[in-house]
């Protein structure tokens, strides 16, 4: 990527519309807390999308995909037309995926444009037009606005000595066609072997291990309807991470994160498979590396207990 483009993104991402989504108000609250704390520490401004709604997640999308497109478009419309923002940052993989999918559908599908226009008029807000905002993930936000060199300069408690398996989950890169900015050569994210989280955590001193299940399915969508399948898939991910030498699995999706935590416990109870690998959001790890206390990044809100681990590693 050219220096000019890098500089323009750096500036553009310094103040973004923040779309936390439903999960970050519930099971993923630690991710919400740590994202905000990290942004503040890095001097990046987050302006929460006013009166935001559900992105349509899995439930609405399964029943009526065009209704999901509308719901996601409303979030982008508020950011663009009411708040006059250029960038929406969504830390949740599900929200990020759905906003990108809506963007793609509105740029390429007449029927989607027609439905979104009709529902927007009915709801009494401006119709979102494709291209009005850029949707990014929390990984893009830190990677582009601060970068590895910027992080290195700010590290107070190095993650040195911590071996990490970076788990991106399935929705961050899939399907490829809704992420046109990825797979664009050096500097861009890869859909087959994503590396932004590896880059950031390595810059903070950690060692990312070679982990072959970075984007493998964790069974998140079936965590309630078929818990046994989810438990078996998660147990395999956790065991693979340990076999790869990892002490921590870093996450960047609230659904994956809570699935890994809950099925780690369930795998021990129902399958007798005990794993010790810690499950921590990348924003929590970066926050602690920058000198934030574990509670400031919501470590106490995780289901799994990693306090002793972070203390041992000199992060608390």
């Amino acid at each position, binding site marked *: 990527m050219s220096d000019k483009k890098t500089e323009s993104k750096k500036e553009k991402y310094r103040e973004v519309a923040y779309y936390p989504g439903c999960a970050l108000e519930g099971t993923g609250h630690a991710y919400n807390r740590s994202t905000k704390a990290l942004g503040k520490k890095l001097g990046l401004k987050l302006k929460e999308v006013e009166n935001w709604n559900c992105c349509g997640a*899995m439930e609405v*999308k*399964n*029943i009526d995909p065009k209704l999901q497109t509308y719901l996601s478009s409303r979030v982008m419309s508020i950011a663009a037309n009411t708040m006059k923002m250029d960038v929406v940052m969504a830390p949740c993989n*599900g929200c990020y995926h759905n906003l990108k999918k809506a963007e793609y559908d509105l740029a390429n599908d007449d029927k989607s444009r027609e439905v979104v226009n009709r529902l927007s008029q009915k709801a009494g807000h401006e119709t979102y037009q494709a291209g009005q905002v850029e949707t990014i993930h929390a990984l893009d936000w830190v990677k582009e606005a601060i970068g590895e060199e910027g992080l290195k300069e700010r590290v107070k408690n190095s993650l040195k000595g911590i071996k990490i398996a970076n788990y991106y989950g*399935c*929705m961050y890169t*899939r*399907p490829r066609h809704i992420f046109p900015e990825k797979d664009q050569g050096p500097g861009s994210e890869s859909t*087959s072997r994503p590396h932004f989280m590896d880059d950031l955590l390595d810059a903070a001193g950690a060692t990312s291990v*070679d982990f*072959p*299940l*970075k*984007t*493998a*399915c964790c*069974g998140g*969508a*079936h965590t309630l*309807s*078929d818990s046994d*399948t989810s438990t*078996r*898939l998660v147990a*395999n*991910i956790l*065991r*693979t991470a340990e*076999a*790869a030498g990892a002490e921590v699995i870093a996450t960047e999706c609230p659904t994956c994160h809570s699935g890994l935590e809950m099925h780690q416990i369930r795998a021990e109870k129902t399958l007798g498979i005990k794993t010790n690998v810690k499950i921590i959001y990348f924003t929590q790890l970066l926050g602690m590396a920058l000198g934030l206390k574990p509670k400031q990044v919501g470590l106490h809100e995780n289901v799994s207990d990693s306090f002793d681990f972070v203390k041992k590693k000199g992060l608390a």
Partner: protein
Amino acid sequence: MTTLAEIGVRLDELIARPPAPGDAGELLALGEQALEQWVIARGKEPTPDQREGFRLLALHHQGAEKDPSFNACRETCRELVYHYNLLTLQPDDPESDQHARMMGWVANHLFLFISGKLETEKLGDFCCASKPLRETVDANPVAQ
């Protein structure tokens, strides 16, 4: 034809050992056999073709036809091929033992994904790109 249960038992044996670089061919074949089970369950004949030099990738492609949710195992299949290539093209690499162990876990993940998906088939397709469970309800209200 190898059953899904037999594939699972063999993978458990290999992982417990753990797998050695010489097991690369068998691990790849177990992945193909798991994919064959999925293709057959959907009423098709498993393809003998190859994509990018691998039947595994052709079988995955066939399994994902009209079912984009099956692409949730696309990278798992590609990782299996990647590890096979590492082990067969660079057999003397000092990391070969670790690559073989990783290949075992990747093959196991593909097996678990497919067996789970087959189990839940009657509940609707797996994953977030799934067809709505409602479709069955709407189509057959009396049975509910």
